[in-house]
């Protein structure tokens, strides 16, 4: 059996003998890698943005609701308990009431979210104005969708109506709060914030006569991957509450991520096809063009396995060289997409993620595809009978 040095030498020389073919081969692999590297980086960026919108700027990693009834009593005590978990970055009680917003004679129904003004973990992105201060009785943050429909801007005065009683089967005037408020800020967020109102929890809870209650508690974690385990622990520790991890609680988010993964898999399959078919064709043509050389090698004492190895290593060299060029091109495209994002809307920006796996995965796929594509031509080369070539029979 020929040593690797000899096999590599012959494979390399075979490739270099036909520079046009080798350029085509490398371009085929490099093209696939160069396409997939920024594609994967953008896909990861999209998923990160999605999680950021749905979790970090949404309802948190773990969402806690009362098992029975509509309110969590002693919400601040529970918040402190939850904050004691090492993986928890913040626990944010949220009081949610149905309501409406009236401005310039137009009334729009909207959910009202009341949360503590001081927290830096909020289920929205502040696009304009300033956040609410703790105990702000007059301030309101308005979602972009609502603001646009009602023609609101920071500083606008609005009339807010909130249904304060959530357990009553009938409503009377006392159950509906009416407040003149000022728009302190305009907020955005893909997961509902654009159509919602945000007020101070202390204010709304006091108005509702339930000063230490919440409808939900959003728990924000340092690592999104720990949400499932923490939810289980919370369910055991606080049986009167129901904790759900974000993936279980948000079917839209979970299915969006699943869809993104599926698209990624389709893209990988396309890369495999884009790399392997041209490679197979070009390597096969190379074998046909080298029938005489293969015959000479057999006559010199190269066995079938040696010849197979030479042609397979050709595919490997092409795979590696193409991957190197593809990674360089892919890196350039990532830098381009970082300065020119593929999607940007109201602060929701998809930026490619520059991480090792964005290169490693396409490289492994391309090299794997190159090797697979090289197997058949190498097999044909190894099975070639030398005598017909020397007789001139093709």
């Amino acid at each position, binding site marked *: 059996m020929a040593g690797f*040095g*000899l096999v590599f030498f012959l494979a390399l*020389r075979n490739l270099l003998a036909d520079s046009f073919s080798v350029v085509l081969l490398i371009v085929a692999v490099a093209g696939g890698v160069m396409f997939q590297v920024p594609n994967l980086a953008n896909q990861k960026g999209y998923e990160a943005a999605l999680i950021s919108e749905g979790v970090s700027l949404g309802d948190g990693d773990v969402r806690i609701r009362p098992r029975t009834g509509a309110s969590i009593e002693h919400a601040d005590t529970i918040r402190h308990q939850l904050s004691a978990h090492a993986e928890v970055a913040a626990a944010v009680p949220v009081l949610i009431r149905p309501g409406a917003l009236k401005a310039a004679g137009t009334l729009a129904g909207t959910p009202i979210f009341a949360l503590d003004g001081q927290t830096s973990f909020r289920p929205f992105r502040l696009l304009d104005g300033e956040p609410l201060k703790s105990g702000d009785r007059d301030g309101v943050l308005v979602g972009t969708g609502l603001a646009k429909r009602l023609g609101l801007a920071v500083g606008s005065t609005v009339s807010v109506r909130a249904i304060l009683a959530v357990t009553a089967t009938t409503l009377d005037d006392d159950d509906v709060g009416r407040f003149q408020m000022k728009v302190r800020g305009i907020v955005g967020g893909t997961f509902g914030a654009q159509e919602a109102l945000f007020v101070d929890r202390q204010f709304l809870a006091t108005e509702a006569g339930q000063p230490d209650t919440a409808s939900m508690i959003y728990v924000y974690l340092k690592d999104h991957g720990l949400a499932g385990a923490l939810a289980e622990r919370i369910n055991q520790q606080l049986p009167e509450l129901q904790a759900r991890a974000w993936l279980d609680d948000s079917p839209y988010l979970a299915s969006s991520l699943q869809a993104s993964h599926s698209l990624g898999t389709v893209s990988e399959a396309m890369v495999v096809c884009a790399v392997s078919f041209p490679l197979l064709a070009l390597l096969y043509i190379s074998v046909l063009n080298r029938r005489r050389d293969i*015959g000479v090698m*057999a006559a*010199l*004492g*190269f*066995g079938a396995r*040696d010849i197979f190895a030479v042609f397979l290593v050709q595919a490997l060299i092409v795979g590696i060289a193409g991957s190197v060029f593809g990674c360089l091109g892919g890196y350039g495209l990532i830098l381009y997409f970082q300065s020119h994002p593929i999607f940007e809307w109201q602060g929701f920006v998809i930026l490619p993620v520059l991480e090792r796996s964005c290169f490693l995965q396409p490289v492994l796929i391309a090299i794997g595809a190159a090797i697979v594509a090289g197997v058949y031509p190498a097999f044909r080369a190894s099975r070639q009978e030398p005598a017909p070539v020397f007789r001139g029979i093709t």
Partner: protein
Amino acid sequence: MTTPPIARARELTRRFGDRSPVDGASLEIAAKESVAILGPSGCGKTTLLHLLGLLEPPSSGQVLLGEVDAWAQPAAERARLRLSYIGFVFQLNNLLGHLSARENVALPAWLKHGKRNAALSSADQWLSHVGLFERRHEHAARLSTGEAQRVAIARALINEPQLVLADEPTGSLDSKNSESVLEALLAACSQQAALLVVTHDVALASHLSRRLEMRDGKLSEA
């Protein structure tokens, strides 16, 4: 105890459909013997050479290299025999055109011993033997036909085979180059190997110690 012949063909037959270019050919070649097989084009000389060189399987019959029934061996062992026991010189030199003369010659030694540098220095020595040391870095494709054939001889001999098989080694050369190639071949082979040359050139055959004629697929003394 007598030394067994270097190579023996016993009742070798090769059929292609209803045609048998080699039909019951038998032959023995002793060490350091040089044998010419004469015959017109298409009479089966090259097919016989391929059968003896383990490049083409016989339809029936045996090829014994020393005491080894070569065609009864597995493919890997036959490859090893081609590497160590046999050296080939083809009519059209059949060098690997994308390698230099030196690399072409070194290839069998590198394959056999796995040592690149040793193979290259051995190649340099063989190229000196055939008078081409100065041209050792030239790409095979740029060598003249005569030079290429001498490189092919060096390549055939580098592993010091017991049997050298040459198919019309001067067939594509002018008379001056023919002489030079033949001299190189005979000089090299007289040191170590038995030589079997297939040719239709009677003048060439006259330089060899024994001449056989191929007729109707069989061999007879010429």
